[in-house]
Every structure is written in C-alpha cells, then in structure tokens.
C-alpha cells in the first residue's frame, strides 16, 4: 500500500469515526482493557467498551463485577496501558488533563467536604475547573439545592448529598458525565428524583452519560444503551432495542388452555412450543408483537384459554439469565 493510499484510508476511517459536528461516534472507547490488582487476580478481562456520543449508557452488573474498577480506569484513577482507554477520540494517558476538563464524575459514594457548606464545596471544585462563578448558582438550581446552599454538608440527607455530588460533576458544564451508582442507598423518592435529573441532563443539556448500577429496574427507564458486565467480562453491549430483542429470545410465553395436546398441534409449526403439563404450554423465542397472532390461532380453533402471559419479562430476570448462562 502506497503512502497516499494509507493516508486516504486514514482519512476515510476518521470520517467514519467522527460525525460531521466533530464529535466522535463513541465518546468512550476501551481497547482490550485489562486490569488486575495482583498478577493472579484479574479484575477486568479485555473489555471493549463503546459509549456512543449523546447516549445514556447504563453499565450493569452485580456487586464485584468490575463496574467501579472500569470507571476508575476510565478516569485515570487506576494505571492502564497506553491505548487501552480513549475518550472524546483521544488517548487518555497522553491527554489526561484536557480530557478530565470535559468530564464530570461521581465515583462510589459522594465525595464531599462535610465541614463545608454546599456552596463552599462547589467553590472548591469551581476553582479547580476555573469555571465562572455563576455556575454555582446554576448547578444548585438544576439539582434543586439552592435553598440548602448555605447548609453544612454533613447535615444533608443522603439524597441531597447525592444531588450535590451531581452538582459538583456539573460545575464546569462537562460534555460527559460518569456516574457510579448515583441511586445507591437512596429511598424510592430519591431514586425517582435522581432518575428525573439524569433524564433532564441528557435531554435538556445534551450530556453523554455513563451510569453504572446494579438497580436494574431503575436504569431500564433512562438508558438508551446498555453494557452488562459480570466477573470482569463484558457480556452484552448494545442499544435498548437490541437488549429487548435479546430479552424476547430468552423469554417464555406461558399458556394455560383446555385442550393442551390440540393446542400443541396447532402451534408447533409456527412457534417453538413445548408442553409443560396437561394444562400448560410454553412458547420460547417469541416477541410481544407475535402474541396476538398466537392467541388468534388458538381462538380460531376454539381452544379455550384460561391464562396467557410472559414469564421473566423484566430486565432484572433477563440480566440474571444472561450472566448465569
């Protein structure tokens, strides 16, 4: 390959990787990211994370799966090898400071100075980011903490601390937010508030958000993309739709009917159907859209149906199924 064709190839590749507005297709990319605390104990196994720009990417996994380790590696809190982590299309290690200027983060529990007020905490971070003073008022308003700004942080509730930690992450108006379990330890009201805040940050302020959680029912409602990690391996990565398709592949539709043997004959050519017992059938790899058709066949044959429905339909069951299969 000549030097010109090489150059042309790189131009085309860059054009594919970058959108017209200058944003890379993926805000975060890891390339075969490995990490181990001791040589014998590997925590992350060749992780290829791809967080699309403009997405809310939910990084799911049970406790100890490697979520926090991954996020710490992304922020440079753990030593990685050159080329393993790229953010905004730039290698992290050689652009650490310029990249961190564009990221807001919350890692594990909120990192706040308990002896200072909410405003003073924000001032500490504002100085480090060299942001404008007016940002303090703005982020206090966004997170609903303006009235509590002069209160000492140690007197804040956990929900308020969590919101202040998000306010700290927003003080420099970053393009990317990395939030590690932001709903951890919150009561249902706090979880709802945080979820609304995350949605708002995405919709109104166009932030790309990487959020980790083991509270699957919560992230399911806000995510556009998912990554599922278990024991340091990335088991799934894709859009919400792709996950739904995967879910339908693994979910089971159960029917309780009058004449199970006849129902089996009616359905077996069209669906993957099995007899459970004398009164029940199960249908696998069926999507929600196909169920009216299935019921229609049985009704046409005048088979009486007592009960029909999906089992294991929530993401949590799906997730457990994925990580245990």
């Amino acid at each position: 390959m000549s030097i010109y064709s090489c150059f042309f190839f790189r131009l085309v590749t860059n054009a594919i990787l970058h959108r017209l507005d200058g944003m890379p297709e993926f805000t975060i990319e890891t390339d075969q990211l490995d990490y181990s605390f001791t040589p014998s104990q590997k925590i992350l196994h060749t992780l290829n994370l791809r967080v699309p720009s403009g997405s809310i990417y939910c990084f799911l996994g049970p406790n100890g799966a490697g979520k926090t380790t991954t996020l710490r590696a992304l922020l440079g809190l753990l030593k990685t090898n050159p080329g393993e982590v790229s953010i905004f299309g730039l290698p992290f290690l050689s652009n650490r400071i310029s990249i961190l200027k564009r990221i807001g983060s919350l890692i594990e529990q909120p990192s706040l100075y308990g002896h200072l007020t909410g405003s003073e905490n924000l001032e500490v971070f504002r100085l480090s980011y060299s942001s404008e003073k007016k940002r303090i008022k703005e982020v206090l308003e966004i997170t609903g903490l303006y009235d509590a700004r002069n209160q000492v942080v140690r007197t804040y509730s956990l929900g308020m601390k969590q919101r202040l930690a998000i306010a700290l992450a927003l003080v420099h108006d970053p393009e990317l937010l990395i939030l590690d379990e932001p709903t951890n330890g919150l009561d249902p009201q706090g979880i709802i508030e945080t979820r609304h805040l995350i949605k708002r940050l995405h919709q109104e302020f166009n932030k790309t958000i990487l959020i980790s959680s083991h509270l699957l029912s919560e992230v399911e409602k806000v995510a556009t993309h998912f990554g599922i990690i278990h024991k340091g391996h990335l088991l799934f990565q894709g859009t919400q739709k792709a996950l739904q398709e995967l879910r339908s592949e693994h979910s089971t539709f159960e029917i309780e009917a009058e004449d199970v043997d006849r129902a089996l004959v009616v359905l077996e050519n069209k669906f993957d159907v099995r007899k459970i017992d004398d009164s029940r059938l199960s249908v696998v790899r069926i999507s929600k859209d196909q169920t009216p058709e299935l019921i229609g066949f049985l009704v046409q044959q005048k088979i009486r149906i007592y009960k029909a429905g999906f089992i294991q339909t929530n993401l949590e069951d799906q997730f457990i199924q994925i990580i245990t299969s």
Partner: protein
Amino acid sequence: MTQSFLLNTKAEFLKTKKTAAFWLTVIGAAFIPVINVFKCVGRPDYFIPVLQPDPWKVFLEYNWQIASFFLLIMYVILVTSLVVQIEYRNGTWKQVYALPRSYADIFFSKFLVVHVMIAGCFVLFNFFIVVCGYGTALLQDQFQFFSHPVPWSEMISVSIKMYVSVLAILVIQYWLSLRFGNFIIPMGIGLALFTFGFMIRQWEHIDYYPYMYPFLVYFKNPGLPPDMAQKAMIHSLVWSGGGLGVGFLDIANRKGKG
C-alpha cells in the same frame, strides 16, 4: 499553569476552613505563651527577679524551650496529618485525582497549604509571645515588659532557624500522611521516630536524624560538636529537598489513586 496552580492552592486553603488543623494552628500558637503568663503571674516572687534584667529575652526562652523540646514537633506531625486527612476522612481523594490537575499540582499545592499553616503558626506564636508579655505586665506591674523594647530581630532569627529545622520532619510526615489513610499510622511513626531520636540524642551523627533537628538547633548540646546546630539546619534542607522529590515520585507512580 501557574494560574491553575494558584487557583488549586486557593481551593486547598478553602478545604481547611473550620477544620481541626486550622484551630490547632491558632490554639497551638497561643498555648505556650498563655501558660507562661499563668506561670509568671502565679509566682511573681520567683519570676519578677528572674525576668528583671531582660524580661523579653527570658520570656522568649521560656516559650521557645518548651516549643523546640516537644510541642513544635508534635504540632508539625499533627497538622500535616490533619490537613491530608481532610481528603481521607471525606473520601475525596478519588475526586481530587479525577480533576484536571497534574499530579505535581495536587502534591505541591497541598504541601504549600501545610507549609503556610506552619509558617502562620510561627507568626502567631511570636504575636502571642508579645501579647502575653505585655499581658503579664498588665496583670502584675512589677514585670518590666513595657520598659524594654521587644527583641524583634532575635525573634525573627530564632523563628527562621526553627522553621528550617522542622522542614525535614514536615516533608517526611507529609509523605507518610499521603501514604497511609489511617490517621494513627503517620502519627505513630512520627512519635516513635521522635522518641527514638531523643534516646540517641548524644550520638555523634545525630545531625543526620531529622526528628532531633529542632532540639539540636535551639539547645546547646554539650558533648556534641559546636557546629551541630548549623549542620542540622543544612541537613534539614537537604532532607526536605530529597524527601519532596522521592515522596512526589512515589505518590505520582502509585498504581491506584484515590
């Protein structure tokens, strides 16, 4: 770069607001002079004749003897640990390292805060010595503080020497405090090294042992070479320069941060 360092140092100062480190500096500086007021006023029969020829000189000695013997070293050990502990106690180290700050900026801005606190303690200590000297004379008018000039040049000279003498301890304690999240470990190591130093203070190479420098610089050391104080100050500067370099490289190259 310089502006960002200054802003970050300002942020580091803000973190010390209302902390134990701040109050320790203020109260610690006042402690010995105030006790000396009680001492002199409580036994005027003994102290008026003793302080008669040159009250400021004697009063200055009363204060610096206690400080250089034990309390100054204790203060340096404590304040260094307390400033670094602000991050450990609040679990904020990870957030500090996730800021767009170079490792040198993080290391040296906090070090500068500890430095300024110690320097501030020296200034306050001298201030309280003067205030307490005059206070003693107000409480008991036979003390002649008002009729003698304050020995400013001697006070500044002693303060500078003592400041140089604690630099090595400061750097070692700073590194230990960054290294260990548990407050007790750097404190315990510091106290153990000081106690050990006190036990071997007659060693002919004691000028290589940082935890005895304040002692060597302030007191006359019978049985030791006459230039011991000078050597101790030079070695303190060497220790602090070397310690800062080694400490920074160690912290910057740690596998996990925060």
